[in-house]
């Protein structure tokens, strides 16, 4: 027990939380925007995988970090746009389309990797670039705090910045209001002249962009190379975080960090002599427990509605 507490209440542990929560924050923000637009999209896994590979290929071929980021973004957004075309224009089933794109992400990235390098596992033979780390001046010298929040990958800071930007987009801009209206009552939006499909496509475009950053972080920050299926369900955990956060940016970020800490804990436990399967299960169990508790809260609010109704009835007597 002592070992556990020592390793959990250490600065390294909290540093790890921020490190592993980064991709989850990105993808949960992507899920949030898309959900606000009224689209149930599960294709984030595919978007992230393609973005991760795109970043590696772009930066390896040109030795230019910017080109790498650009190519990764293009890859990820392309998947989002394919989803938009099929689901919004051709009216195909969103779950099946999302599933297909995730499988495409899993197989397609390996195919591309093999075509370029002759390898099927990792891109370690490609000399791809990494996004640098940043030691924040002044803060890095503060004990404990500095050790936890300084020295992260730039992507990590970008993730937290994204939360603020998403908040502003959703609640403070015209576009955000329109996205929320088409997501909730498309007929109402249409009746006042808002182009419903176009607004939904834009929300997917932004979602695809944010998810791409999450994907590129994995291959250009978290690890220095691409490995097959390296998202291992993060796209889905992001969706869960969005649900747990009730579609509110701050709460969604906190949920993503909660799932991140579960992952960090499982990292700590792996160094102990616990069965590794059990430890790896932890983040997912936390996810399920989180979703169940959300269900409970919702039920309660329903009974509240019923109470209001009863009160109304008695006044109508």
């Amino acid at each position, binding site marked *: 027990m002592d070992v556990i507490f020592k390793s959990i209440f250490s600065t390294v542990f909290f540093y790890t939380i921020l490190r592993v929560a980064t991709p989850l924050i990105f993808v949960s923000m992507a899920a949030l925007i898309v959900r606000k637009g009224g689209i149930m999209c599960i294709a984030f896994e595919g978007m992230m995988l393609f973005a991760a590979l795109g970043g590696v290929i772009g930066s390896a071929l040109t030795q230019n970090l910017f080109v790498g980021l650009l190519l990764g973004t293009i890859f990820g957004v392309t998947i989002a746009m394919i989803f938009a075309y099929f689901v919004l224009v051709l009216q195909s089933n969103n779950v099946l389309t999302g599933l297909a794109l995730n499988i495409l992400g899993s197989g397609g990235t390996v195919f591309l990797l093999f075509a370029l390098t002759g390898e099927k596992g990792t891109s370690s033979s490609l000399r791809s670039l990494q996004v640098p780390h940043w030691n924040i001046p002044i803060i890095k010298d503060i004990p404990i705090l500095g050790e936890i929040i300084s020295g992260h990958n730039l992507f990590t800071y970008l993730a937290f910045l994204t939360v603020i930007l998403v908040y502003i987009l959703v609640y*403070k*801009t*015209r*576009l*955000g*209001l*329109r996205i*929320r*209206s088409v997501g*909730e*009552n498309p*007929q*109402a*939006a249409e*009746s*006042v*002249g*808002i182009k419903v499909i176009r607004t939904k496509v834009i929300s997917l475009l932004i979602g695809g962009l944010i998810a791409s950053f999450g994907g590129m972080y994995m291959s250009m920050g978290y690890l220095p190379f691409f490995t097959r299926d390296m998202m291992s369900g993060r796209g889905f955990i992001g969706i869960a975080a969005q649900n747990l956060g009730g579609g509110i940016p701050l709460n969604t970020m906190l949920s993503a960090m909660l799932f991140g800490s579960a992952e960090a804990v499982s990292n700590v436990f792996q160094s102990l002599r616990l069965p590794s399967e059990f430890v790896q299960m932890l983040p997912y169990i936390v996810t399920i427990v989180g979703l169940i508790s959300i269900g409970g809260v919702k039920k309660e609010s329903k009974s509240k509605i019923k109470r209001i*109704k009863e009160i*109304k*009835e008695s006044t*109508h007597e």
Partner: protein
Amino acid sequence: MASVSHLFHLEIGVRIMSENIKVEEYILSMENITKIYSNGFIANKSVNFKVRKGEIHALIGENGAGKSTLMKVLFGQEQPDSGEIFYKGKKTNITNPLVALHMGIGMVHQHFMLVPSLTVAENMVLGVEPGKYGMFSYKEAVKLTNDISKKYNLPIDAEAKIMDLPVGFKQRVEILKILLRGVDVLILDEPTAVLTPQETDELFKQLKVLKEKGYTIIFISHKLHEIKKLCDNLTVLRNGRVTGTAKVSDLTEQEISKMMVGRDVFLTIKKDVAQPKETVLSVKNLSWVDKHGKRVVNNLSFSVRAGEILGIAGVEGNGQRELTNLIARLEENQIGEILLYGKSIAKQSIREIREQKISHISEDRMTFGTVYEATIEENIISDRFYKKEFNKNYLMDAKKIKNHVNELIKEYNVRTDSKDLPIRTLSGGNMQKVVVAREFSSDPKLVIANQPTRGIDVGASEFIRKKLVTLRDQGAAVLLVSADLNEVIEVSDSIVVMCDGSIVAYLKDAKRVTEEQLGEYMLGIKKQSDEELREVVHD
């Protein structure tokens, strides 16, 4: 020479004058509007509809009379096959609702066009959001809302969420929303259908204020007392045609009712005098409140006896659907009692009720009557597949089912190539025959038929009506709900009229009922005394 040119000028002057008069008199004029839907249904036939500036003009008619189609044409949701629309004296071509809105015509739909989780202010400005550089200024939106709400004396909490507002206030937001967009003409599509009486009074006050400010209002309704209270002029539609335009104060409610309700085709069904026996269904003080707190079914008491057909007449949406759904257990949380053979159904499941030989033809064929994608055979056996006679050693007896279904298809004259086709491939009439085949072949003791012949061809309608009479003769109790006066008068033995969720009349002998009489009760002009109404309970 001079005199000729003088005359010429005079003529032009007269023409300009007459055009000016037209501009002033009618803000809106729809001329010779004809709309035929692709299935051949004539919704509007040479309709002339003219509205003066600053009046409240009622557009009335029964369900299916063509009111909605006419308003859809005006609001750009449908294009007319022929006819012209003049707005403020100019010929216009309204291709979609936004064009109408820009011209100055706004509509408050029956189903509100609001986003529930957004605030009042956000809903108000949606589509025309204030703010610079793509940002949305919520403060500005709240200010706009408060300004306009003050201007028209329609108080509203700009920062409340729509979902927390009662229906009356949601409607107020809708009205404010179109006022914000600068319209001159407001169309209100049955605005009082969802309101409580208090909310209706409030709405009327608001509308009168708007009229004083110079707005023109088109008020769609079929509640005559409301029209009497609120409107200046009215136009009546019946079967897609205008039956009259007049000043409201020139007509009595009876006269309006005659213009609205009438039989164009007479239909007769031969049947003997009913021999009512024991009570099968009895409803006692039944009420039901919808989720908005409106009492849709209000203290109903009646009974249906074996061997009689009790018709329920009324304009659609006066609680009939909720009543039959309550009896069939499709709706819950009733107040009061529904007794089947003297036993309450409150604790019984739908299957338990059906096991007591109750049949239900829902007015909603697509949702409750059939499984749309399933085959004809599957639809027919859906209420009996579990019974012993159709099963053999834990599996369904395919052969027996096949024979049974084929027999029914033949008996009920369902036109289809095979019992294995999905029911969606059938026409409305044949689909209804399948429903009827299932519901009538289980030897029912009580048949609840809600709009059994709506939207189906004449042949199938006649077939179903005759079947209802046959079942009655075999000793079944039949409760027939219909908005079709022909049907109610001819098929029923006695008639109950529903209006606003209550029973307003019990007419013991359907043979002696006239449509004028029914019309007056249906539209809420007349109401029988409690003593007369008590006779519908036979205990």
